[in-house]
């Protein structure tokens, strides 16, 4: 689904990470780990197409890509349900009931509250609703576990499991200790300026 060949990215002529190569098949999860500043977010943003790699190339034959990063892409002045309704109508690919998604995300109690009044973890859950509403084949998740409680971490693992068993693929960057059960043995460990496989 995603074939990456020796991509690297330089900022002010300094490499953020050394050339990275991997192949991601449907139904597989690639876990990108490493210390702060080793280039996990940059790699994800290159794969999302926001940044152009300084060298190398990648091909992606996924129909569409979903991205959840540090900027959550939810509007503070809309309620949880309004945010999700907009995501659904804008993506235009799903007839899913937003109320069901709200309950799945564990936000049933706050669905009519403005997003600005939510806690960081609740905002994260709201942003993750994007994954449930779209039908993207490739997910790019940058620190999806941050700010989430134990139950929220379980929620991410659950939706990830159903996505992968349905033939989707995912690149997940995390610095934390938690590893989703689908993580395979040949995941990338980015070290600043070098790659260990």
């Amino acid at each position, binding site marked *: 689904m995603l074939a990456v060949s020796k991509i690297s990215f330089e900022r002010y002529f300094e490499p953020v990470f050394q050339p990275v190569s991997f192949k991601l098949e449907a139904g597989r999860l690639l876990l990108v780990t490493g210390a702060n500043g080793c280039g996990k977010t940059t790699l994800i943003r290159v794969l999302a197409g926001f940044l*152009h790699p300084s060298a190398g190339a990648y091909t992606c034959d996924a129909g569409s890509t979903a991205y959840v990063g*540090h900027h959550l892409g*939810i509007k503070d002045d809309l309620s949880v349900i309004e945010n999700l309704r907009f995501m659904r109508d804008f993506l235009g690919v799903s007839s899913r009931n937003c109320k069901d998604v709200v309950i799945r995300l564990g936000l049933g109690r706050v669905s009519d509250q403005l997003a600005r009044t939510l806690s960081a973890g609740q905002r994260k859950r709201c942003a993750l609703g994007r994954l449930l509403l779209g039908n993207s084949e490739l997910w790019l998740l940058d620190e999806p576990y941050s700010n989430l409680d134990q139950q929220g971490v379980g929620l991410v693992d659950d939706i990830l499991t159903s996505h992968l068993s349905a033939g989707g693929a995912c690149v997940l960057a995390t610095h934390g200790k938690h590893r989703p059960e689908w993580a395979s043995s040949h995941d990338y460990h980015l070290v600043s300026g070098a790659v260990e496989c």
Partner: protein
Amino acid sequence: MPAAFLALLRRDLLLAFRRRTELLFPVAFLLVVVSLFPLGIGPGPALLARIAPGVIWIAALLATVISLDGLFRSDFEDGTLEQFILSGHPLTLIVLAKIVAHWLVAGLPLVLLSPLLAIWMNLPMESLGVMILTLLLGTPILSLIGSIGVGLTLSLKRGGQLLSLLVFPLYVPVLIVATAAVMAVSDGLPYGAFLGLLTAGLVTCVTLAPFASAAALKISVS
């Protein structure tokens, strides 16, 4: 795609309604600027009538530039812009939806207020219709051209100041043509050609400006 266009338009109008106090700033600004002129220049009816088209139009330019910075700023800061780019919808049409929403909340009120401003400035009644028409044709051009400048200055912390330097020179032709049309009416000259020029400008901007803005936004996100 039409569904996404409408969804975005509806969302932006809802967001504008949620922050309706912010909508009042450009309108209040316009009223204050125009009302300062009779105080500063003197309330002579003939003089005011002569400068009325220019004053109202310059105030409209200033009010538009004030409201422009918010066009993409919040979407840029909260990551929504990244989602727009990734959505697979043409960014050009997304930009157009945002500009339409911007004009409806920031440009249209200026048009609706113009009869009141015309009375303040002692604009002859026979010129009023053409004045409104030039604003109706011209303010969307201001939003469209402005969107390019906003896209380019988005990643700067204090982009607003640079924005005004960027877009004011581009607004000059609109200002000249629009005020010339209104003055032609007062002088009893034909004004059709000026309105034709404004319409042509509007068509050109609707066709081309969203492409330029979309390209500028992509640069700002990377």
